[in-house]
């Protein structure tokens, strides 16, 4: 077993971090709500400048690792340009398709759909032929869906079906994006607990707060491990939809726990719009519901396990 990421992947991650920090970190997301052009005019070129837009998650291991870590770095500041959607497009399609959305059930809005001239949507468990995504109006500007754009799904976009591995990888990319965001929350919460003093001591000295921070750490590490392992399986072609949905379920549960505990650790200050936690919370909301909510993911996972079986500590045969 080797548990280190390739040096080249780590180097790229650092480059992405640096370029995002230069552009303001979480501030990019905050400002893009008022000035949505920031996404295409500033952020996209910045990402392009470090070469992440060309990465192929289904390419060789090193390149795929780099893609995961780049997406994770974007998640860490909830960067408002959908790198995960762009990298979900198979490389051979990229000349004519800029983003792939995996969808479930009726679709009314998709994140950042206004940024692409041609994007495809692939329904879970349906026809794997992508359908064209057509924006039908302007951003809804909902606090919990800041870049949701009303769309309609039209006829087929291209003649080829999305390869299974690419569909599964789309879930893995979401897993890394969310893991990045949750790590920021975790680090900020732990840092705050060390500096915020009440009753003459840092709040991190109170058992109640230590437990919350420990719960955050366990949830974080659990998600990281699950995302990495699922990546490993998907990349090697050994995963099924059940693995991808198991990751999604783990991701949703981790996010629930981390956000809940972090809000409590920060108290009132974390609820102010000026605070990163509020921005991270709001900007995470869409990916926690699209393509499927926690309850929906649970039932999809059950269906997938019945269909494909589930390989893990206790193998479940398919029915």
């Amino acid at each position, binding site marked *: 077993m080797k548990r280190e990421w390739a040096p080249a992947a780590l180097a790229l991650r650092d480059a992405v971090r640096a370029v995002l920090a230069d552009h303001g970190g979480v501030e990019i997301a905050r400002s893009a709500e008022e000035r949505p052009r920031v996404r295409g005019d500033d952020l996209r070129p910045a990402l392009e400048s470090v070469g992440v837009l060309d990465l192929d998650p289904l390419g060789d291991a090193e390149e795929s690792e780099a893609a995961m870590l780049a997406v994770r770095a974007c998640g860490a500041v909830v960067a408002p340009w959908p790198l995960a959607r762009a990298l979900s497009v198979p490389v051979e399609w990229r000349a004519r398709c800029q983003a792939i959305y995996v969808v479930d*059930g009726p679709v*009314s*809005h998709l994140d950042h759909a206004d940024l692409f001239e041609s994007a495809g949507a692939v329904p879970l468990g349906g026809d794997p032929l992508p359908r064209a995504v057509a924006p039908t109006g302007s951003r*809804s*500007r*909902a*606090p*919990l*869906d800041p870049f*949701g754009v009303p769309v309609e799904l039209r006829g087929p976009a291209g003649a080829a079906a999305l390869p299974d591995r690419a569909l599964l990888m789309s879930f893995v990319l979401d897993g890394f994006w969310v893991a990045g965001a949750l790590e920021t929350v975790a680090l900020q919460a732990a840092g705050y607990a060390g500096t915020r*003093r*009440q*009753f*003459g*001591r840092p709040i991190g*000295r*109170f*058992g*109640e*707060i230590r437990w919350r921070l420990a719960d955050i750490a366990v949830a974080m590490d659990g998600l990281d491990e699950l995302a990495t392992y699922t990546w490993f399986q998907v990349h090697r072609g050994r995963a099924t939809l059940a693995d991808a949905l198991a990751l999604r379920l783990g991701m949703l549960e981790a996010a*629930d726990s981390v956000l*809940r505990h972090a*809000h*409590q650790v920060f*108290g*009132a200050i974390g*609820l*102010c*719009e*000026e605070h990163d936690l*509020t921005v991270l*919370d*709001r900007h995470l*909301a*869409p990916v926690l*519901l*699209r393509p*499927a*909510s*926690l*309850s*929906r993911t*649970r*039932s999809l996972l059950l269906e997938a396990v019945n269909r494909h079986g589930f390989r893990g500590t206790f193998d479940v045969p398919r029915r």
Partner: protein
Amino acid sequence: MDFAAGAEAEALRAEVRAFVREHLTADVLGRVAATGDYHDREFHAALAGRGWVGAHWHVEDGGRGWDRAMTDIIYEELASAGAPTEGLAITQIVGEAVRRVGTAEQRRRLLPPICRGELLLALGYTEPGSGSDLASVRTRAARDGAGWVISGQKIFTTLAGKADHVFLLARTDPDAPKHAGLTLFLVPTAAEGFSVAPIFTLSGQRTNVTYYSDVRVGDEARVGAEGQGWEIVNVALAFERGGEFAAQLRRLVTAAATWGRGRDAGAGFHARLGRAAASAEVARLLGVQASWSRSSAAAGAVEGTMAKVYGTEALLRESRALLDATGVEGLLNRGAAGAAAAGELQHLYRESQIATIYGGTSEVLLTLIAQQRLGLPRGRRSTGA
């Protein structure tokens, strides 16, 4: 034992519901959304017009001498309809303190105008460095001839941009032990040296930072004796905690049920809705218990605390679960086409995040329950409250 509310209470409930239908107009809701202030002058005036502000206070104070339980009904009905009630709630909390410790002159000057809806008050306890540890506040009030000079900064002074006075907790004796050197004042927001800056929160609600730079007030602004601030705040806080979150839960369940009715929402949604309904019922009953014991001598502090912890934790849990169950359409704004439950669920979800923090965090309140309800000794690192 008889849980029935009585005909009078039921009649009042019906009257408040009719009032809401008439007065909680789209204009009122629009103003609340635009300003972020959960208070509306017109709506509040209409409430006062019915005699529903401070209705449980004595007639000579401007009230109607009603049972406390009747005011709770008014509040509960307003809150479950989503009416702006923050001004009503906060002003009554401060009025309650004035009723208990104010001078005859203060009672005359303040209480009747409160009941007439002419006076709006804000709570100025929290400071950037003093949240749960309220007794550590540093805003200073120093004697200056017959009056006082106040300097310092408060944060989360909700409604301070609209209020006539801030009920301010200040340190008057820096040399006394921390709980003993505190005094309360009603600082006019029109006073020179007072200023306010807005803070917007996750729910879209506005609260404020307030600054006091050498604000001069007369001694008639002092509420209660010098050095008695801590004691009074604790009584006032007891009145802050109660069953109001049951009303929020009711609002949540109503919104979700309405959404679920016209469609095949699935067994998962129904299970969640059922659970939320059960939580709403327990929260209501704990609120009733708190309300009942508040009218007894013990002031019902621990019962209110229990109702608050249960109601707020349930609200967080159930709003998240129901938002999840409605899926992405639940994220859309109020008024947006296709918004699940008309956008109510996402709004309640965002609003509920503050519930376990303000008016005492869950951590601090659970510690109090362990001590006051279960008689456990104070923990070595406990709040010192």
